[in-house]
Structures are given as structure tokens and as C-alpha cells.
């Protein structure tokens, strides 16, 4: 039997084939064929990924070199894949969660026309392909290919319903914000090439090569990579595209804008952990930006009324937590949270899709209420998701969030305090969402009430599977205090990730911190219950209004950056280009024509004459030279 590591190329190739079949055949294939192909290729990739994972777990890692992508002078960028602990873990998350979301989509998107149904699945497959390239690449350039590829798919899927101009604008915004980050990423790659002449991980992250980099180099490279990450992973200041990205179909939000793509930035930094650990300044910045984003987004989430917007800001906030962990040197904790977050956030997004489906497209939670009676599975699974994200033991979110809080405490208790406060806000806004949506009285129209129903099995089964994973997913990383050798994940990742500055917290302190956070979270949930169990619509004012309007950040960006640039472009276009640049050209032309009035007869303005004259002169010169010099 062949070794799984020799056929890793099939993992991205299969979704690519799925993309081509569904994309080209979208007019000829039936919806069921499209569904089977679209989901089947991802399932196959998932199966191979499990196989690969088991091989890696057995201690085999692999670097597959296929061909030279770019080879210029000394610069060699191979098209190569690296299969190690970190990438194999991401493979499982991407293909596993990806498969569930494909299955869910077969039902959720069923009312689309066949042609668009095929288009949807081809984009989704293309996304999986790109995301797999991103994590499998053995160098930064292959990562960048996947990096921009997922951005493209995100753009295509946000603007999937392309008749709506608003959605298309959201898609453009996502792409452009990401491109700002991508530029920084690119420059970081060039910087590496300049200093080391290579971008291959196994060559960059060697002691000898790392020693060649000066402190400035390391700071610049890590900061640039981080700027790239703020674009893709929606951190301050480039986060504003993610909430708008909710214009895309809900399964897309679950897969791309929650579970996988937005965690690319975390993957990138975790992959470069050896570099980051050498850059204390960058580490501080990563931690502060992450924490600020977590807090900032959480405050906005408090007052959002669109079910998907709450989840979107929650995603931004959770990503902030992951960056906090990275900045504290707890790379494993960040990766751990990527995993558990993929489970419970995909779960909640798919749950919200089930709700939206039942409500006939309604997304405003003020018009919902009391849905628990009709949507039992959705309610229970959503509840599981909320408990998991709030961080109540033994649900998965508890373990990963606890690891992050602990790392923050080890770095600086103030960071811990703010992070804990943010975690409390998280519990509050998530349960606010849950209670407003599922408890109390129904506040929508009679028609909607009549239409309410639980979603069909292809939608509920993924919900149930994700709920189970959200409950048990944390057991791979049980902290040492509970169980010696319980941190299986940390052990597994240890060959590729060297955590930095972690520890130094006594067991008793750890118990106290855990008890404290769990107790406070429970209090927040009870508080939310009393406040929102019988929600009545109210108008916001004061700070509430500012939060509802997302701190007016979009407006600020428009005023400070977008509009001035637009106006400047207008000035260049209508005034500078015509009056100054072309004005000088025409002025010179006029001056020449003025001074050469005597040649007026020749200046008939007929280009033909000029050309004739020119050609004639050239010929004459040639002929004269020819005869004179003979």
C-alpha cells in the first residue's frame, strides 16, 4: 500500500477538479450531481487528510517537491508542499468542517437556480483548494498563492448574489482591505529574499539563517507579516470588511468568514513562531492589537441586531483572542482556539442559517423570539455553541480560552484583566443573542410564524456533529493541572511550535483563575437571562447608539482615507492632467507653431501630408547618402 504522504497532492487537487467540473458543467449537471461532486471531493480530501494525519502522528513528516515555480538567478521558489504536525492539523479542520458545510449547503442553497447552484459549489471547492494550498505550501510564496486565492473566493462568494449592488460593494471592500494586508505580506517575502535568498520554511527557520538576520530585519519582517495577518484575519485597523462580508450566503460565512480563511493569519504566525519569538517588540504589538480588537469588537457585538452581524463581530473578537495568545508566545493555545472556534462558530453560523431559513430570509433578531419551540435541534445546538464560546467547562471553548487567558496572565496581569472582561462581554452578547432569538414571544409577522419549521436533515446533521465536536473538542488540550499529559495537542505540535515565555503560573493560581472566570461567566449568563428573556424592542441612545453604529469606524475611514483619495483622483483627472501636464505639452506645441509661421503652408494639419513629407525626407536622405559616398 502506498504511503499517504506520497499522495498529498490529491488533497488540494480533488477540490480543484470539483471546481472545474461544477464550474464548467453548471448548466448541464443536475443539482444532485453537483451536490455529490461538490461534497464528494471534499470528503475524499478529508479521508486522505485523516490518513495523512495518522502518518504524521506516527512521526512521519514530509516535504513534497513538484517543480520549480520560479527560478531566476539565485532565487529558487519550488512548488512544494510541507506536511507536518501544524499543516496536517489544519488539513483536518479545513476539509472536515468544509465537508460538513458543503453538505449543509446542498440543502440551504437548494432554491437557487441550477446554474447558480453549480457556480456556488464551484466557488466553494475553489476556496477549499486555495485554503489547502495556503496551509500545505512549503514556502511563503505558495502560502501567498493560497492567501490571495482564498481572498478571491471570499470576494466571489460575498458577491455571490451579484444583482445587489450593496453586496458587490461589500465584496470589493473585502478584497481591497485584504490587498492592503497582502502588500505588507509581499514586502515581507521580498525582505526575506533579500536577506536570506530563500522563502522555504525549512531553510528560513534554521538557527544559522535566523542568526543572519539583524534585530531590525526580524522586527520589520514579523511586523509586515502581521500587517498581512490583520487584513486576512480581520484585526484593527483592517477588520471592517468582515462584518460586511456577511452579505454572502450563510454557509459561506460559516466556512470562510469564521472557521477557516480568517484563521489564516494565525496559521501564518504560528508557522513563523521561531521568527516571532525573536521579536519581542512585534510580540507586544501583536498582543495589544489582538486584545484591543477582541475588546473593541465585543463592545460592538453587544448592540447588533442582525443575527449574522453579532456572530461576525464575535468572530473578529475571538480572532483577537487568538492574536493575544500569539503575542503572549502561546502559539499552541492560539492554534487550539482556532480549532475549537472552528467547531462552535461554524455551528452557530450554520444555526443562524437554519434560523434565517425558517424565518424566510429575516435576519433581524428583533423580529424573532420564541423560536426554541419550533426549531428544537437548532436551538439546542446553538445553545451548545453559546456555552462553548462562553467558556463553561467542560465544553471545548473553556479549554482553549483558558489557555489563552493563562498565557495573558503570565505575560501581564493587566492583559489578563482586560481579556477576562472581554470574555465576560462575549458570554453576555452571545446569550443576549440566544435569548432574544429563541426565548420569549415571537415578534415577527403572522406569515413568518406560520412558515416556521425545523430545517431538513442535511442541515441539522452537520449542526449535531459540530455540536458534539464543540462539546468534546477541548479534551485534546486538557491543562496539566487536571491531568498529567492531558495536553495532547501541545505534545503533538511540539516539533513545529516552540512556545515562548509561557508558564510560571502556580497550580493554585491556575485553579483560582479558572474558578474566577467560570463563576463570572455564569453570572453574566444569568444577568443576560433576566435582561433578555422577554425582550421588547427599544431605541438605542447615547453610547448604545454609538455601539449600534460600530463606533462610526466605517464613516471615519470614508472621511479620512477614501473620500480624500477619491477627490484627489478627481483633481488629477479633471484638472491636473488636462491643464498642467497636457497644458504644458500643448503650450510647447503652440509656441513651436507660433515661431514657425513661415512654414504655415506646410502646416495643413493633415497628418497624411506630414507623414508623406517625413517618409520622403528619409528616403531622400538615404538616396543622397547612397550616391554621394559611393
Amino acid at each position, binding site marked *: 500500500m502506498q504511503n499517504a504522504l506520497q499522495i498529498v497532492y490529491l488533497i488540494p487537487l480533488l477540490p480543484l477538479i470539483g471546481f472545474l467540473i461544477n464550474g464548467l458543467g453548471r448548466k448541464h449537471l443536475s443539482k444532485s450531481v453537483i451536490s455529490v461532486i461538490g461534497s464528494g471531493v471534499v470528503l475524499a480530501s478529508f479521508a486522505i487528510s485523516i490518513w495523512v494525519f495518522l502518518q504524521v502522528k506516527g512521526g512521519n513528516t514530509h516535504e513534497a517537491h513538484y*517543480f*520549480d*515555480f*520560479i*527560478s*531566476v*538567478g*539565485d*532565487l529558487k521558489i519550488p512548488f512544494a508542499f510541507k506536511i507536518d504536525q501544524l499543516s496536517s492539523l489544519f488539513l483536518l479542520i479545513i476539509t472536515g468542517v468544509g465537508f460538513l458545510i458543503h453538505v449543509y449547503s446542498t440543502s440551504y442553497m437548494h432554491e437557487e437556480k441550477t446554474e447558480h447552484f453549480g457556480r456556488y459549489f464551484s466557488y466553494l471547492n475553489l476556496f477549499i483548494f486555495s485554503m489547502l494550498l495556503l496551509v500545505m505550501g512549503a514556502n511563503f*510564496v505558495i502560502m*501567498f*498563492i493560497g492567501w*490571495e*486565492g482564498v481572498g*478571491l473566493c471570499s*470576494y466571489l462568494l460575498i*458577491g455571490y448574489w*451579484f*444583482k*445587489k*449592488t450593496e453586496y*458587490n460593494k461589500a*465584496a*470589493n471592500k473585502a*478584497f*481591497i482591505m485584504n*490587498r*492592503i494586508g*497582502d*502588500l505588507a505580506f*509581499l*514586502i515581507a517575502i*521580498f*525582505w526575506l*529574499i*533579500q536577506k536570506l535568498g530563500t522563502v522555504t520554511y525549512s531553510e528560513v527557520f534554521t538557527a544559522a539563517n535566523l542568526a543572519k538576520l539583524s534585530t531590525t530585519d526580524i522586527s520589520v519582517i514579523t511586523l509586515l507579516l502581521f500587517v498581512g495577518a490583520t487584513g486576512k484575519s480581520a484585526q484593527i485597523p483592517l477588520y471592517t470588511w468582515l462584518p460586511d462580508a456577511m452579505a454572502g450566503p450563510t454557509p459561506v460565512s460559516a466556512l470562510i468568514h469564521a472557521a477557516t480563511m480568517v484563521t489564516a493569519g494565525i496559521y501564518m504566525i504560528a508557522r513563523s513562531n521561531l521568527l516571532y519569538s525573536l521579536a519581542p517588540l512585534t510580540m507586544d504589538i501583536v498582543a495589544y492589537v489582538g486584545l484591543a480588537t477582541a475588546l473593541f469588537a465585543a463592545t460592538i457585538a453587544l448592540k447588533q441586531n442582525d443575527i449574522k452581524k453579532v456572530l461576525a463581530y464575535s468572530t473578529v473578537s475571538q480572532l483577537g483572542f487568538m492574536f493575544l495568545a500569539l503575542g503572549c508566545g502561546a502559539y499552541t493555545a492560539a492554534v487550539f482556539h482556532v480549532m475549537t472556534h472552528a467547531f462552535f462558530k461554524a455551528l452557530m453560523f450554520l444555526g443562524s442559517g437554519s434560523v434565517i431559513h425558517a424565518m424566510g430570509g429575516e435576519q433581524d433578531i428583533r423580529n424573532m423570539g420564541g423560536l426554541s419551540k419550533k426549531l428544537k435541534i437548532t436551538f439546542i445546538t446553538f445553545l451548545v455553541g453559546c456555552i462553548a464560546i462562553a467558556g463553561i467547562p467542560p465544553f471545548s471553548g473553556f479549554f482553549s480560552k483558558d489557555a489563552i487567558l493563562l498565557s495573558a496572565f503570565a505575560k501581564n496581569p493587566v492583559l489578563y484583566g482586560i481579556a477576562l472582561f472581554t470574555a465576560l462581554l462575549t458570554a453576555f452578547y452571545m446569550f443576549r443573542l440566544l435569548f432574544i432569538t429563541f426565548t420569549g414571544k415571537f415578534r415577527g409577522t403572522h406569515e413568518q410564524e406560520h412558515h416556521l419549521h425545523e430545517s431538513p436533515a442535511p442541515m441539522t446533521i452537520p449542526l449535531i456533529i459540530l455540536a458534539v465536536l464543540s462539546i468534546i473538542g477541548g479534551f485534546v488540550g486538557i491543562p496539566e493541572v487536571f491531568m498529567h499529559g492531558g495536553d495532547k495537542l501541545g505534545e503533538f505540535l511540539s516539533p513545529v511550535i516552540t512556545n515562548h515565555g509561557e508558564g510560571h503560573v502556580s497550580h493554585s493560581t491556575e485553579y483560582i483563575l479558572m474558578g474566577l472566570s467560570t463563576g463570572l461567566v455564569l453570572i453574566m449568563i444569568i444577568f443576560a437571562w433576566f435582561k433578555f428573556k422577554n425582550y421588547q424592542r427599544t431605541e438605542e441612545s447615547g453610547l448604545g447608539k454609538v455601539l449600534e453604529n460600530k463606533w462610526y469606524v466605517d464613516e471615519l475611514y470614508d472621511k479620512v482615507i477614501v473620500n480624500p*483619495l*477619491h477627490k*484627489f*483622483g*478627481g483633481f*488629477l*483627472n479633471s484638472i491636473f*492632467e488636462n491643464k498642467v*501636464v*497636457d497644458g504644458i*505639452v500643448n503650450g510647447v*506645441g503652440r509656441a513651436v507653431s507660433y515661431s514657425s509661421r513661415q512654414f504655415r503652408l506646410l502646416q495643413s*494639419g493633415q*497628418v*497624411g501630408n*506630414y*507623414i508623406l513629407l*517625413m*517618409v520622403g525626407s*528619409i528616403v531622400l536622405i538615404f538616396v543622397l*547618402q*547612397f550616391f*554621394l*559616398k559611393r
Partner: protein
Amino acid sequence: MIPVLLILIPLLAGLASFFIKNDKTVRSWALFSSLLTVVVAVLAVTVLKENKYLAHQCEWIPALGSSFSVKLDGMGQLLCLLTGIAYPLIFLGTWNSQYKNAKNFFALMLLSQAGLMGVFVAMDALLFYFFWELALIPVYFLCSQWGGEKRIRVTFKFFIYTFLGSVLMLIGILYLQSQTPNKSFGIQDFYNLDLPGKTQSWVFWLFFLAFAIKMPIFPFHTWQPDAYEQSPTATTMVLSGIMVKMGLLGLLRWLLPVLPIASYSWGDVTMSLAVAGIIYASLIAIRQDDIKRLVAYSSIAHIGLMCAAIFAENKSGTQGVMIQMFNHGINIIGLWIIVEIIEKRFGTRKMSELGGLAQKAPVMAIFFVIIALANIALPLTNAFVGEFLMFNGLLNAKSQYSLWFTVFAGVGIILGAVYTLNMIRKIFYGATNQVTEAAQDLKLNEKLSLGIIVALIFWIGVYPQAILNITDGISQTILEQTDISHLFKK
């Protein structure tokens, strides 16, 4: 033999076209001739790439020290391949466009191809100048006879501007010839000149202005958006897809290796102009409503990057320019083909009057989106490799400002995404209106030409070495000739 064939086939076919009366026949004749040319061009980069096939020399005007010396080096092979591929694509893609006096139109198109081939293979300065003019003259006529409403004024400006450049270059060429020991126009004699820095400095500007106008480089570009807009689209394709490469080739073959000291010392100035042009043109592109003008400004930005990368004078930058010259030609012709289809079907090029085409013409939308995304260098499309290498080259340029050049040029990447995505959105997305309501999707010939372009986009995007290998040797040679580090050691 091959370079002579590449010139002769279109030249003779073009002359013959003047005598074909039937519109349909002349169209097929032009396509046939261009297919013949592309076969020869492909042979030149594949099986017949030995020296004996690629070079040819005979007497031309011995009294002047000028000979008919033509040779296909790697850069020549690539650009002749581009020229070879471009013309059938243009003829095929615009097959449905009707022209008055079709025989003259196609004759002039083919003559311009002959001139371009000559420019790319000439290894004698006077011959180079001769072909330079030969390529331009048909284009003046094409623009002035078959152009839009403002064609006379625009062609006049285009003519005066480029003619001025040509004259400056001619002066430069004559001066250099007078400096050679054997009074020769041969390129090797030019390379051996070794002029003092001060002399190089002013001769540099004679050549640079000619090339800068041709590319064009900010602030010598104002003829270009008008000319692109007013020319018949088939001519615009020639102008933007291939002719701008005359300027780039001029820099690489006739300027840097001949005047290495001046090229180095003026490098910061030229790179500044080029990079400023990227941002300038991109900002203006954002504000365009006419698709042709938008693509025209976008092209100025892209050419700016190529020019800057040339003056970076390193392997990565030079190879990036080489591959990008090819990519830019292919991609922009693809864009123009769709622009032409839109203009012919809807009678407008204004984006504000279009919209919702993706519903009515999904195949067109897919092709356009792919080509537009290639135009902004998305990975796995051809332009990514070019831009990647050029940016890498720019950062490693031997200039104290190299980081700033890279960053500012990089802003162009972001602005490029802005105007490109807005263009896609305004033309193809949103709701349909009465203009686009009755839209038809692509016809077979259009699908065929765009299909070839898209295939090239992905092929080069995934396996760029196919192109990079062609130009590897010549890039190295150019850099060695341009290298002046031995002067510092003395």
C-alpha cells in the same frame, strides 16, 4: 532566416492585401498570414532555436556603415512570439467588426506587424530606426482614417509627440555612430563605445525621451489615453499590446547596455518618474467612466512598473520585465477584445450606462473577470509572476530609495484592485437596464480568441519557467553589459 521571414510574411501579405477587393477575403487573408507568422514565431522558440536560423546579415547601406543585420535573441524571440500570437487573436477577436475600405485596414495592420517584427530583431541602429518608423506610420493612418470622432486632433498629437521622440532618437543614433571607430551602426559597435560619463548623460535623454514617450512614462503620456480611446479597437490592441514594448525593448537593448554609466546615474530619476506614474495613473483610472480610458490609464501604471524594474538593473527585475512584457500584451488584448464586443453590441463604453451583464452574458463575464484579475496580478495568473519578480527586483535595486520605490509601486497594487473591481462591478454586476437587457453572449470566434488568452494566462501563471527560460540568457547578458561595478574598483 527566421527573422527575415517574420518581417517578410506580414510585409508581403500586407502589400498584397491592398489589391484584394472582397472584404471577406481580405479578412481571411490577413488571418491566414498572421497564422503563418505565428507558426514561424513558435518554431523560433521551439525547434529552430540554433543560431544559424536566428540571425541574418547582409549589406544594406554600406556607405553609411549600416547593414541589414537581424537576430533573434531571447528577448526578440519572446516579443516576436507575442507579436505573432497577438495578430491572429486580434483578427479573430474582432472578426465581427466591420471596416470601410477593409483592404486598406488589414493591409496597414499587417504592415505594422512587419514593422514591429523588424524593431524586435534589428541589430543595426539605423535599421532599428527604420523599422521603428515603419511600425508607426501604418498606425497613424489606422488611427486617423478609422478612428473615433476626435481622431484628427488626437492622431495629430500622437504623431507630433512620437515623431518628436523619433527625431531625438535619430540624433542620438547618428551621434553614437559618429563616435564608433569604424563609423558603424552595428549594435556591437555601440556596445563597445565606452563613452565618458558626461557625454552619456545627455545622449541618454535623447534615447530615454523617445522611449518614454513610446511606453509612455509619466509625464509624457498624455497622447496615449486619447489615442487608445479614439483608435479603432484593433489598432488600440496593437498600440497597447505590442507597440509599448518597443519602448521597453529600446531601454533594454539600445539604452542600458550602450550608456551604462548614464543609466545608472539617472536611474533614480527615471525610477521616480515611473513610480510616480504608477500612482498618478492609478488614481486617475479610478475616476474614469469610459472603459477604454480606464484600461489606458491602467496600462500606464503597469508600464511604469516595468520601466522602474528595468532600471533596478538586476536579474529578478529584468526577468520580471521580460515575462511581463509578454503577459501585459496578452492580457490587455484580452481586455480590449471584450471592450470592443461591449462597444459594438451596446453602442457605449461608459460604465455608468452598463450593468448586470453577468446575468445576460455569463461567459463574457467569466472571461472578463479572469483577464481583469490577471491584469491585477492574482497568483496563478501570468502577471503575478512578472509583478512578483519586478517588485523583488525593485526592492533589491542599487538605489538608496529602493524601499520607497517598492512601497509606492506597491500602493499601485491596491489602487489597481480598486479600479479593476469597480470596473467589473459596474459592467457586469448589479441589475440590468434597457441598454444591457437584450445582451447576447459571446460568439464562437470571440470564445476562441479569449479561450486562448485565458489558457495562456493560466499556463504561464502555473509554469512561468517556460517563458523565463527563453529570456534567461539575454537577461544575464544585458546585466553584464550594463554592469559598471568595474569602474568603481579602479
